[in-house]
């Protein structure tokens, strides 16, 4: 880890704790860069104080934490971003598109620095970027140092530094006008209390409070220019002044008398202001903070409104203190160690509480069981014992079923994190290609297994980029086609039974099946005769064929398709499927269907050789009993027609390398049980010895060297205590086809092209 010349602040700690803290930091840093990016993107649309604050906080926290664990390149870099955001927050730097662009770029660099630490790589050289960041800060506009909205009515040569006056908060203008309509005057006030104010036991704020009795304070601002650094600060000296804009019917002299009660030696200046020059501006931070002091407790409000009694509030508070009603917003962190990695899952406290309740139920049931045992030992009536056992058994059954569902639920995460990255991707493509694209996302609250959410990110990003890049046309082209200039890309997720469906739709120029067929033939993916036999839907599916499209061949008519075979493979690895539909001129839609969870799924149980296998049901196209006489030989390999498609047959034990050819000769028996797999467009008939019933199974990981080259995903414990090996369909089919074809490259999907006839 690059430490620069500075010592590691954690050097005094044991190495294990040091590592743990660094890991904790890296985890949070990843979340903070996301937060920062989301906030900056939101600022592009609308600039509000809370979002600016959120962005500042993210940079600020990351800077501090990085310094705490000695990752100085990160802390120094974030310091630069923090400075810019602080200037924006203080209102001294306008948030121009250029600065937003610089900030967004900064987010990427920040992310890169975090990644570099994680991968033990040297940090990137960001000198050039740092230069631009500092240049952005030089844009700080002194005229924006508040007060630009207020001009003096009297001589500009006044002593009162007008630039010190606070701007009016939003809406303050109306207040001021209302006061003026009532005959009030508008004054600017500067109040610098004497240095020894505190020693005399006086409170400058008390003075301001008494001012507020005679005047309406429209805005205020602390003057801190006299503050020395903290090291030189004498806390007994009063060095903070106040600049105010007030409205009052009092005269200037009367207003000044208020301060006569102030500490001797204070500086007070009052100046009447020109009401016509009022312009509101964003509220300063202090005004926002003051907003918090109007905070009333719910109980007080409810009592005052006569909606509840004081007793009821007390009782509610007592319950709250016991933790029954609070806490569902807090998050607990539970480490879900899996296969030696150290990923962790964030879990809402409410979920943990529900689990604790269930465990409580189980403890009760256990006690009941012990009680029944004692009854039986003491010679209780058999019928009574049986009744007790049944009741307790039922309770345990319910608790365990719920427990299983809840614990699996802990792995579920909302798609929000995955979706968060999308606006950025679309924005980048649109900016690069001068397109106008609007992104709609639906269903970011849909929950999905964490592993699936993670595995889904890359394919989704790819599809989104394709839709924006190749799907949506340029504004001129869209205008010519009579479409609105702004193209729409829509990503919608929804839950359907035990799967989730994600649809990526664009209203771009769509794809032509005819052009797809021509292109596929010209690239040698299929021959002309096959092309002629394809339906339009099948032609569009060609886009998923490996080698169908490369970056170089992206052309107007295909519209998209870069690396679509990669998308299909990634989705298949997650146990999902992908399909495409398109209307020429109107747009394209890609549909992903994925299982909700990878841990528990329905599997077909089979026996092959001495082993029992579980095959994920999603991968199974059909099961057939094939009589010996229907098996033919093609290129020396057994094949048969299944569902009208010529399908290669391989014995399961041989497919995953558990048995040699001669032990599993196909065609020895009169009929064979064949499980036809259809994965990622590849088709294969697996011959098994015994076909059993489908069943819900829970997969446990197994050691890699036992996984038959990846063809086994894990093992599952069966109800009778035996173990079934769980097939990883994609890898298994690839391995089997490689054996059939006698080479490392499976001629994937060729079976599909040799249609019947």
């Amino acid at each position, binding site marked *: 880890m690059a430490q620069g010349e*500075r*010592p590691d*602040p*954690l*050097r*005094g*700690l044991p190495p294990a*704790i040091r590592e743990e*803290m660094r890991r*904790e*930091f890296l*985890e*949070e840093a990843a979340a903070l860069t996301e937060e920062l990016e989301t906030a900056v993107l939101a600022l592009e649309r609308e600039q509000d104080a809370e979002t600016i*604050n*959120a962005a*500042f*906080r993210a940079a*600020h*926290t990351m*800077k*501090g*934490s*990085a*310094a*705490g664990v*000695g990752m*100085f390149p990160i*802390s*120094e870099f*974030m*310091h630069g971003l*923090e400075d810019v955001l*602080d200037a924006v927050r*203080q209102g001294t730097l306008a948030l121009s598109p250029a600065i937003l662009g610089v900030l967004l770029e900064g987010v990427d660099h920040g992310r890169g620095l975090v990644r570099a630490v994680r991968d033990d790589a040297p940090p990137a050289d960001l000198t050039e970027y740092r230069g631009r960041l500092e240049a952005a800060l030089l844009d700080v506009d002194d005229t924006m140092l508040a007060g630009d909205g207020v001009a003096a009515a009297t001589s500009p040569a006044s002593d009162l530094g007008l630039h010190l006056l606070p701007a009016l908060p939003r809406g303050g203008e109306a207040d001021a006008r209302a006061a003026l309509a009532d005959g009030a005057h508008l004054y600017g006030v500067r109040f610098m209390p004497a240095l020894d104010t505190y020693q005399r036991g006086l*409170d400058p*704020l*008390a003075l301001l*409070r008494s001012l507020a009795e005679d005047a309406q304070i429209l805005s205020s601002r*602390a003057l*801190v220019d006299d*503050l020395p*650094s*903290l090291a030189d*600060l004498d*806390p007994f000296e009063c060095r*903070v002044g106040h600049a105010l804009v007030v409205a009052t019917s009092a005269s200037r002299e009367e207003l000044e008398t208020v301060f006569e009660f102030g500490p001797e030696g204070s500086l007070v200046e009052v100046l009447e202001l020109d009401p016509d020059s009022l312009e509101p501006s964003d509220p300063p*931070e202090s005004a926002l*903070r003051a907003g*918090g*002091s109007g*905070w009333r407790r719910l109980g007080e409000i409810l009592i005052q409104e006569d909606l509840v009694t004081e007793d009821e509030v007390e009782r509610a*508070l007592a319950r*709250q*203190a016991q*933790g029954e009603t*609070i806490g569902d917003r*807090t998050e607990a*962190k539970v480490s879900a160690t899996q296969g030696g990695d150290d990923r962790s899952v964030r879990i809402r406290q409410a979920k943990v509480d529900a689990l604790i309740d269930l465990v409580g139920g189980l403890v009760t049931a256990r006690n009941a069981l012990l009680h029944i045992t004692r009854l039986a030992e003491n010679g209780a009536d058999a019928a009574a014992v049986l009744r007790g056992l049944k009741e307790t058994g039922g309770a345990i059954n319910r608790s365990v079923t719920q427990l299983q569902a809840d614990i699996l639920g802990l792995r579920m995460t909302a798609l929000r994190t995955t979706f968060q990255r999308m606006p950025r991707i679309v924005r980048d493509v649109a900016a690069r290609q001068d397109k106008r694209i609007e992104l709609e996302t639906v269903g970011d609250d849909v929950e999905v297994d964490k592993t699936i959410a993670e595995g889904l990110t890359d394919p989704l990003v790819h599809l989104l980029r394709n839709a924006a890049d190749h799907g949506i046309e340029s504004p001129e082209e869209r205008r010519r086609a009579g479409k609105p200039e702004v193209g729409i890309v829509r990503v919608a997720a929804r839950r359907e039974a035990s799967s989730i469906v994600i649809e990526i739709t664009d209203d771009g120029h769509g794809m032509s099946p005819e052009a797809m067929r021509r292109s596929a033939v010209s690239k040698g993916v299929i021959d002309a005769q096959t092309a002629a036999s394809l339906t339009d839907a099948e032609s569009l599916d060609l886009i998923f064929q490996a080698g169908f499209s490369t970056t170089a061949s992206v052309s107007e008519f295909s519209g998209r398709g870069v690396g679509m075979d990669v998308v299909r493979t990634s989705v298949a690895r997650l146990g999902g499927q992908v399909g495409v539909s398109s209307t020429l001129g109107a747009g394209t839609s890609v549909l992903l269907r994925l299982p909700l969870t990878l841990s528990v799924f329905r599997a077909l149980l089979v026996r092959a050789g001495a082993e029992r296998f579980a095959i994920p049901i999603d991968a199974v196209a059909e099961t057939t009993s094939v009589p010996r006489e229907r098996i033919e030989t093609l290129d020396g390999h057994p094949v048969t027609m299944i569902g009208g498609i010529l399908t290669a047959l391989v014995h399961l034990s041989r497919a995953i390398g558990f048995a040699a050819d001669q032990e599993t000769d196909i065609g020895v028996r009169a009929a064979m049980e064949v499980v036809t797999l259809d994965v990622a467009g590849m088709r294969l008939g697996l011959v098994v010895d015994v076909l059993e019933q489908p069943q819900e199974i829970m997969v446990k990981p197994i050691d890699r060297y036992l996984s038959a080259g990846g063809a086994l995903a894990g093992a599952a414990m069966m109800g009778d205590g035996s173990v079934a090996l769980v097939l990883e369909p994609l890898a298994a089919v690839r391995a089997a086809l490689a054996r059939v074809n006698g080479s490392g490259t499976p001629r994937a999907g060729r079976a599909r092209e040799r249609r019947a006839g």
Partner: protein
Amino acid sequence: MIGKPYRVLVVDDSAFMRRYITRILESDERLEVVDVARNGAEAVAKVEALEPDVITLDINMPVMDGLTALSHIMTIRPTPCVMVSSLTQTGALATLEAFELGAIDYVEKPSGTVSLDIEEIADELISKVRTAARARLRRPSAIRQRRDAWRATR
């Protein structure tokens, strides 16, 4: 060990910092972190529910910042607070405001420019939190006035 440990509430919006501070405080046998809060509003609620002996309070937090939380805490249940924040120019002002509102002490977080060894921060934090926990608090005058005004309205 003499007597029961002081019960500490740690308030910070950064999960990393919450663990960082908790780790430091729990290394001292006289201190026990009873809970953490992620923002001022949570802190106020937890002060009422848990009645901690001492609080470490970050200043810059979402939902409700540390200064606002401090003024609420000093109103509803005056509890010694040690501000734990990083020093910036605006931070210095906020720190003064915190003292005015009744905070007992201030500990500087590590920051981009100043980096302190965790051992130094730990020594400072532990000693300040222990000292603060022993402090007997009166409501500061500003708060007392606010409370009196509030009572007058009831």
